[in-house]
């Protein structure tokens, strides 16, 4: 396979190699076909792109800076670490890129109601924001476990006019929120648009969410060329479902650059309490697509664990599964306490409070920087800010920033 071919997915049936597809109940199939047709028709249109760009630039806060973290780099004593500051976006994470895109598409399709699932609450807040912007009705499904650990985001969604639907079934986390959103969508299929927050779910979602997130990588490319005159040596991003990672990586897939996706190792892969789907999972079908999953030998889905609610998901986007198999991206995992260490370091050394999700990527970049020469360039996607995590961090005795 030549490198150029990495960008030829998905195929016309929504498959990324053996992954992806549309494994859904018949009631949803016509809606997915309608969505695919609308996505193909509207999104490439220059008028749509212009409208979206204006929203992203004047409302969401794009372009985001590519920041040279000099003090952090000096401390590691190796490669130069650059942070793509998605944390500076309106609502505090990269999620808004996608929700504004999907809500605009929903408007073009004549849908007046939108629903979403959320884990950490960032996608829920970003969807509620987009709904307020477009004057749409919005319902967000959220596991009771996550409602407990992400209370500020629940309040935010409510202030923005959304209804938060607590999901008690299963483990009360992101996967159950997604189950419930799919159940609700089946009942409200005719007038409701489902805004999925990651590059997961049935086709066309993985391709569509990617299309709305590649702005991260495209901007990064322009910015790094301006600042450094060349493309980076390494890209790093955290991977839960994988949307911020795909957004940064996709425009670089055929370049000569190393790429690392960082999963959540929770309390350690060996403890079984983790969310490292690509590192420790196996192939299966969940939430409408085939990919790697955390599952038992019987195909029952297992609970994921991570200190960060946004990575706490037993599946992963199908394109990541393919890129892992092809060897294009290296996936590794970082434990809770390592992410907390990076969190503390970034706070004190750079004055930036990162989301716990993004802290996983920061930790990986810090370790990589140590091994690399000063002239090398690492770009980390700082996908979100950590305000939402203060409650969790306050419960940890000591943040070991080094």
């Amino acid at each position, binding site marked *: 396979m030549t490198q150029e071919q990495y960008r030829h997915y998905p195929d016309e049936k929504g498959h990324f190699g053996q992954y992806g597809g549309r494994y859904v*109940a018949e009631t949803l199939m016509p809606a997915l076909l309608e969505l695919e047709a609308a996505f193909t028709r509207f999104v490439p249109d220059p008028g749509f792109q212009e409208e979206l760009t204006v929203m992203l630039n004047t409302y969401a806060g794009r372009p985001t800076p590519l920041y040279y973290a000099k003090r952090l780099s000096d401390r590691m004593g190796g490669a130069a670490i650059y942070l793509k500051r998605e944390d500076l976006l309106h609502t505090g994470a990269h999620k808004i890129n996608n929700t504004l895109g999907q809500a605009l598409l929903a408007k073009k399709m004549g849908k007046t109601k939108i629903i979403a699932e959320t884990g950490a609450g960032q996608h829920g807040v970003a969807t509620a924001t987009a709904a307020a912007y477009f004057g749409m009705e919005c319902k967000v499904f959220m596991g009771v476990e996550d409602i407990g650990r992400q209370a500020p985001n629940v309040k935010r969604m409510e202030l923005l006019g959304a209804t938060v639907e607590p999901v008690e079934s299963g483990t009360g986390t992101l996967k159950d929120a997604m189950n419930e959103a799919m159940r609700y969508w*089946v009942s409200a299929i005719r007038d409701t648009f489902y805004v999925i927050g990651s590059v997961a779910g049935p086709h066309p979602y993985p391709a569509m969410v990617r299309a709305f997130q590649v702005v991260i990588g495209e901007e990064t490319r322009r910015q790094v060329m301006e600042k450094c005159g060349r493309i980076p040596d390494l890209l790093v991003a955290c991977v839960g479902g994988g949307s911020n990672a795909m957004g940064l990586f996709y425009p670089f897939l055929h370049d000569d650059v190393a790429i690392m996706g960082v999963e959540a190792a929770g309390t350690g892969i060996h403890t079984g309490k983790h969310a490292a789907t690509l590192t420790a999972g196996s192939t*299966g079908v969940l939430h409408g697509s085939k990919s790697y999953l955390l599952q038992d030998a019987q195909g029952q889905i297992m609970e994921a664990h991570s200190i960060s609610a946004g990575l706490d998901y037993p599946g992963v986007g199908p394109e990541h599964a393919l890129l892992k198999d092809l060897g294009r991206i290296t996936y590794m995992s970082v434990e809770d306490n390592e992410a907390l260490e990076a969190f503390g370091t970034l706070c004190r050394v750079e004055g930036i409070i990162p989301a716990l999700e993004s802290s996983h990527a920061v930790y990986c970049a810090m370790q990589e920087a140590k091994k690399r020469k000063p002239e090398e360039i690492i770009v980390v996607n700082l996908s979100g800010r950590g305000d939402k995590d203060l409650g969790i961090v306050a419960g940890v005795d000591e943040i070991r920033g080094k």
Partner: protein
Amino acid sequence: MTRIEKTFEKLAAANEKALVAFVTAGDPDPALSIDIISSMIENGVDILELGVPFSDPTADGPVIQRSSARALKNGMNLGKVCGMVGAIRKKFTDVPVIVFSYYNPIYAYGIEKFYRDFVSAGADGVLVVDLPPEESEEMTGQWTGDPLPLIRLVAPTTPDDRMKRIARVSDGFIYMVSKTGVTGSDGLDAAESSGQVERLKEMTRLPVCVGFGISTPADVTQVARVADGVVIGSAFERTIEDNMDDPALAKRLGRQTSDYKAATRMK
């Protein structure tokens, strides 16, 4: 002639419609589950849909979600479901048994092994909720030998041209979902679904069974007027859930079955 074909032929001769019953395998526990199913078959179930429990049943409402969770907690898995199919087949030689599952448990079990084991256990078909025609070839393509019909679904959202394509690849019978929503949703709109049943019946010679939202004998009568079979699931599971401590639980489900069955006899 297959067991499914024989069943519908026999029912037609008697001027009856098929009572299709869905039960989660192993709910509330494997032994009682066999007693419940036996009692239901003895009291008039024409076709059994044996549900394979799954941790994330996205097409099911709370009642079947809970039944699935109970069965999983008691150690049910696809291998044991296969054992149950064998046990039911031994006891009831003529009743068609359809394995009703999400795709992931089958995928994890192994598509070919699933086919081999369930054909030899005496299963008559399989219905995979989240495997639309667009994806089903990867499963049926690996099945060579004795036929194991894949029961296809048609939904209220399925447009006629798509319905025609589904009818063309269907086998056994067609399961028509009567309403948008998950299983166990309240309220049956028989008028809305009957139009679609009639259109579907013009496209196929296969029997059409209608399910979702059917919970009373009166519902059964209404649906049986137009359809060849009536599917009931959540109503049975609700009885199991509400009467878990009843030592005569199996008998209770038998009585419920005969009430529904009576409503399938056309006058």
